[in-house]
């Protein structure tokens, strides 16, 4: 929502408008924290059950799950929030952390995952990509590329969804069924042309056009029970491409083109070197946006463009007049706000740690 990937019709218009209200991000923040808590509580239980082999695999997987939840917080939320721990079922309240510190915590979880689940290729690859993604967030590009290097391009690990199991539908697929979220299309001027690009990696359906707005759904989640890819070999290659570009290694383009040739059928046309570094960065991030659409990467990437590539906010995030529901022929709801990250519920966190001051930066 906050990014240019999706456009909100109903649920979180505040975030969609880059709202800075501290309560706007309470629900997604709570969900990520719940995943961390559930994984943390599961760890001692898993350590006391099953054979040594399954125990190691499951514990490793649970560390990886907690690592990805921590990654979600690091990539999406403004810095300054704490990470609480649970020790012997007692909460231990944390202190304010910077974004890099949160990435470090995720990194530690993935390291633990690799240590415990060293015999499980599935978990090892899941953790390698998580590790690579964490290092990318910190800006250690070469380490990131190396962390994911051994993951095969065909590897994929997904979250599964079901329509028949209560409360377990694919959230994007469900949102599209209830007409509440549309695929973005040059949102706020600076957004990518997700809808207009006619990219084969993102086939869309136009559901309706009204009052100057068009509502698109993506075929990849047309079925509300479709899985969402958490980590994949494609992402590992994309990280390698970005690291290569950062290092001035010309293989960055061949890595991207190799993905376009081998990871989709029919193969996509090869890309050309745009010739300038900013354009090359744009190209790498655009490739990431289309390969990783709807998998929770885009907001983190947009923030990295600002933090790591010193791009002006206006060139990355939607700006200008905000129309509620995108209906440009109806009165505008105001202008886009300044947020480039999801604000965490600082007022609630302050109750447990008065030193929490809110977002320490955007």
């Amino acid at each position, binding site marked *: 929502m906050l990014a240019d990937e999706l456009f909100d019709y109903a649920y979180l218009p505040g975030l969609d408008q880059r709202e800075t209200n501290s309560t706007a991000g309470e629900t997604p923040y*709570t969900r990520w*924290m*719940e995943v961390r808590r559930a994984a943390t*509580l599961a760890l001692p239980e898993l350590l006391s059950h099953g054979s040594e082999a399954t125990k190691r695999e499951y514990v490793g997987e649970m560390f990886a799950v907690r690592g990805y939840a921590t990654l979600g917080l690091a990539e999406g939320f403004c810095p300054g929030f704490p990470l609480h721990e*649970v020790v012997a*079922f007692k909460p231990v309240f944390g202190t304010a952390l910077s974004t890099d510190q949160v990435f470090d915590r995720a990194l530690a979880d993935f390291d633990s995952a690799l240590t415990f689940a060293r015999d499980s290729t599935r978990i090892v690859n899941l953790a390698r990509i998580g590790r690579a993604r964490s290092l990318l967030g910190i800006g250690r590009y070469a380490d990131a590329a190396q962390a994911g290097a051994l993951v095969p391009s065909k590897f994929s690990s997904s979250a599964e969804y*079901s329509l028949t199991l209560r409360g377990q539908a694919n959230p994007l697929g469900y949102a599209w069924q209830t007409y509440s979220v549309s695929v973005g299309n040059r949102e706020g001027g600076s957004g990518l042309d997700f809808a207009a690009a006619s990219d084969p990696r993102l086939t869309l359906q136009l559901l309706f056009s009204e009052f100057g707005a068009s509502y698109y759904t993506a075929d990849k989640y047309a079925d509300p*029970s479709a899985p969402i890819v958490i980590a994949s070999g494609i992402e590992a290659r994309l990280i390698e491409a970005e690291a290569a570009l950062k290092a001035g290694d010309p293989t960055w383009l061949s890595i991207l083109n190799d993905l376009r040739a081998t990871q989709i059928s029919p193969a996509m046309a090869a890309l050309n070197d745009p010739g300038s570094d900013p354009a090359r960065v744009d190209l790498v991030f655009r490739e990431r946006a289309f390969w990783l659409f709807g998998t929770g990467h885009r907001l983190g990437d947009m923030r990295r463009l600002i933090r790591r590539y010193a791009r002006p906010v206006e060139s990355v995030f939607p700006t200008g007049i905000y129309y509620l529901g995108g209906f440009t022929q109806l009165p505008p709801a105001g202008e886009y706000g300044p947020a480039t990250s999801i604000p965490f519920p600082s007022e*609630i*966190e302050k109750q447990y740690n008065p030193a929490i001051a809110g977002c320490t930066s955007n």
Partner: protein
Amino acid sequence: MIRLVSCVSIGVWLAIGIAAGSASAAQAAAQEPQPVRFLLASNNRELPVPLDVGRIPVLRQRLTLDLQGVTVREALTAISSRARLVLWYADDVIAANRQVNLRANEITVAAALTDVLVDAGVDVVFHRDGTAVIVKRMASVALVQVGTISGRVTDSTSREGIGGVVIAVEGTRLSTITAADGRYTIRGVPAGNRSITARRLGFVRRSQAVTVADDSLAAIDFVLVRAPTMLSEVVTTATGDQRLVELGHVVGRINADSIVKSAPVSSISELLSGRVAGVQVNTYQGTVGGDVGLQVRAPNSINLSTEPIVIVDGVRYTSSAAARVDLGSGNFVEPTSPLNDLNPNEIETIEIVKGPSAATLYGTDASNGVIIVTTKRGRTGPAKWNAHVKGGKTRIPDIRYPDAYWGWRTFAGVPSLTASCSLDQVGRGQCTQDSVTALPTPLNDSKLTIFQSEPRSEYGANVSGGSHDLRYYFAVDLENATGPLRMPRAMADSISLVRELPPEQLKPNAFAKVNLRSNVTAALGSAAEVQVNAGYSSRSTRTLGAGFLNPYAGAFGRLLPGLPYGVAGPDQLFSRTTTERVNRVFGSVTASWSPTPWLLARGSGGLDMASITRASLARRGDVPRTVFNLFSTGEVDDDRGRQLAGSWELAATASFSSSQVSSRTSTGLQYVRTLDDVLGSSGTNLPPGASTIGAAATVRSSQSYREQVTLGSYLEQVFGLNQRLFLTGALRRDGASTFGRNYTAAIYPKAGISWLLSNEPSMPHIPMVEELRLRYAFGASGQQPKPGWNRPGYAVQQALIGGAVTNVYTVNTLGNPEVRPEQVREHEFGFDATALERRVELGLTWHDRKTVDQIVSVSLPPGLGSLMTNLGVTTSAGFEAQLSARLLDGHALSWEIGFLHSSYKTMLKELGGAAERRSPYGGWVVGYPLGARFQRPLTYRDENGDGIISVLEVQLGDTAVFVGEGTPPRSQSFTSSLSFLDRRLRLSALVERRSGFTQLNALHHDQCGGGICRERVDPRTPLPQQAVGIAPLAGDYQYIESGDFTRLREVVIAADVPLAVARALRFRSATVSLQGRNLALWTSYSGADPESASPRGFTQQEIGIPQGRSWSLRFDVGF
């Protein structure tokens, strides 16, 4: 110690005695040696009176003396110093240098003085300060002629001696207490005509005149007639049977056996209602077999139960629907009452222990009070049969429900017959009203109403008898009732045209129950006894849907053309039937053994086992149109639960008593375990005609298990002094599986004083008052956390893993390892009086409670959930009065009245930082009563001046403010019983009142929320009322008004069939009674029935069907 004086002058009398009598007394002594006399000086100028040496502790002391060839002075010095007696005398009075010899072991001081002073011609006169003076024998004392009275007090019925009777000589301070065999002796009674009084609790006080001659014995026996009063009753306590007079707290008592025969009572809840001060029975619906709630004194808890626990024959009994195994909320059905699985015909007594000051020894869970039920026992003698039959009808009283309003509309020039035009819509230009019509609600239409008079019946028989060694009581009871509800005639006719209408759909509420009981008591020799009590009940209840699935609510919600009950009419909702079947076995074994007269050991164990099934069925097509299209494709639910509560106890009581002091020491160990196990399954999308889960297209199942264990021990000591002062101290220690692992045990102390002032010789007699007792008690009790609050919460749910549905195990909550029971501490003070020859009995009680460690929900940082933590503090204070009076007491006519009053005030003192709750349904805010209602204040302004208040012109304030209490803090009941013809014809009535609280008018709220109340439609409605009418659309705004009501609860006309007629019919006795229940209601509440809208806890409020009005006829025969 010894004092030597040359002249003694202690009081005027002593001077007179010495001066006047010294010479003559010395002469008399010389002529006729006399033993020393022990006298008691009086405070006035009267002469001293002889002492009963047995009652003077200093004279009763025993000494071992070896006085050989010592002087009298030396002997007196030895005796007084050893006895620590201050003894004054003049040497010349006692011939101090006279030689004496005394050698004795364990001789009393009195005997020693007598020996030393033999023939000395002296008196030893005791003063009130304990000092004694030896004076020359006073001639004037000889004028005080005294004698002795002695005798025995016996029971008029048993002819056995009665111990503990106070025998007093009127006009003097002389009194004594009879020994266990009833014998007594009073010495030193002034000669003359005296009035002797015998009094003991539970017997008629009696006085007799006697002439006492000098130095002689007068025999005077008393035969006392039993006169049970409230203080003489024996009640059941945690440590065994105890006399009420010994307890520092009040105990409510209901003699069920006599009430059930003569009052319109068909259930335990009806038996409890209005009969004990401080006990409130909430009947939520006017249906049969529905849930009831009990409350004793003030509610204590925010998040835990506010209901008392129930103990039947010494064993825990699951009594509340909340404690009953949870069969899942998916059924959306009205709960039933586990309490009413008991049959009132089987019950001998019900005793109500009202709060922690009394309930300490019942342990954790007893802080809301304890209801102790004792079932009937066999009595020695030939078999006695009793039988009864009862039949009657119940109906919902005629109420003029408010009309629904319809605004005929035109929009864009087009009239509509399918949509109403409300004032709000008119104000916003969305329609134009052509006219307004008031339409009667379907409940006021005989063809559309769901109410109908329906029958109920009861049959029962019991037999009791046996020998001293084996006594028995067997009973069987059957009850059938059809709820006063039916599918409306017009709808039933319509359905019958297209399909068969099963009887359970036509009459959706019914109740059938069978109760069996077998109580056997066997004596095992002379020192032991075993009681085996077993009960069985089988109940089937056809119950209604709850909330929006109850068509009674639908009658007020929305008005749609052709659908008088809105989308959820009785034709739809009654077509989904739910039947709950409960088979319950309840039994206890109690063995008591008394190896010595002073020791009683007791062991008991019991089980309450219930098997519960609840089945709901909506066949495909039978319910095509309901809210959210529930059940339209057919649904079947089958939930099966098993509940078990077991309690075991080992206890011992040692009792000792003398004529003055009694001691009762009790200790015990108690173990209670409860578990419930539920397996639920449901199926949706049924084929036509199918009714089984196996036939459903989609099947869901669930299982849950819950267990909790409590282990407690206690020690209690009761001291009794002179049968008039009783002191109690006790301690209980509990551990429970629901306590946090860092909390080991709960300690509950208890103390009590009961002082029978009327038996106090030093107290002046209050005219016309026979008994007067002051009492005070302090005690603590608790309520344990719910299972799961103390440990991480685990859950198994289904998830998709690798494409397959797999059971996954999650840890959902952290649990609080520190959580401990809520502790309620209570002080209780009061007095009881019996006056005017036991015509009037009065009991007044004040109580003051503080609940600490209230468990509240504390939110953790996002993602970590919440913890149940002991943070809150609440208080309550209240007053109770109980008065009964026999205004007329003749053979031809007698008239008795009774009055009960109770009031309380609760206050939330601290929440410890937890979130407060401001809600119209009842909430908790510091500084306000527990469960008080809060509502955002309403303001309005006709901004556009169009004479219509639209939803945009009303505003609800930001903060909800206090608007009233949610539960009745005051209740009263009044009974009046007239008896004629030697009590063979009786007429009685019970009126109950509850006040001081507010109630939601959900009926009005639903009408306005649905846009069909007058305020929403009729343009003639004044603006303030329009604002109120539209307010529910602006936010959560409820119609809150006073819920005060007075109800004519019971009316009974009962007549004993003349004995000659009964015997001609071969009956021992026969009684017929006409019984009416809930016959009238007086209230300013504008909804249907303020009692039926009773809240459940603090979170839920529903429209309740008004209380049913019933008449029945009952015949009781004995043979």
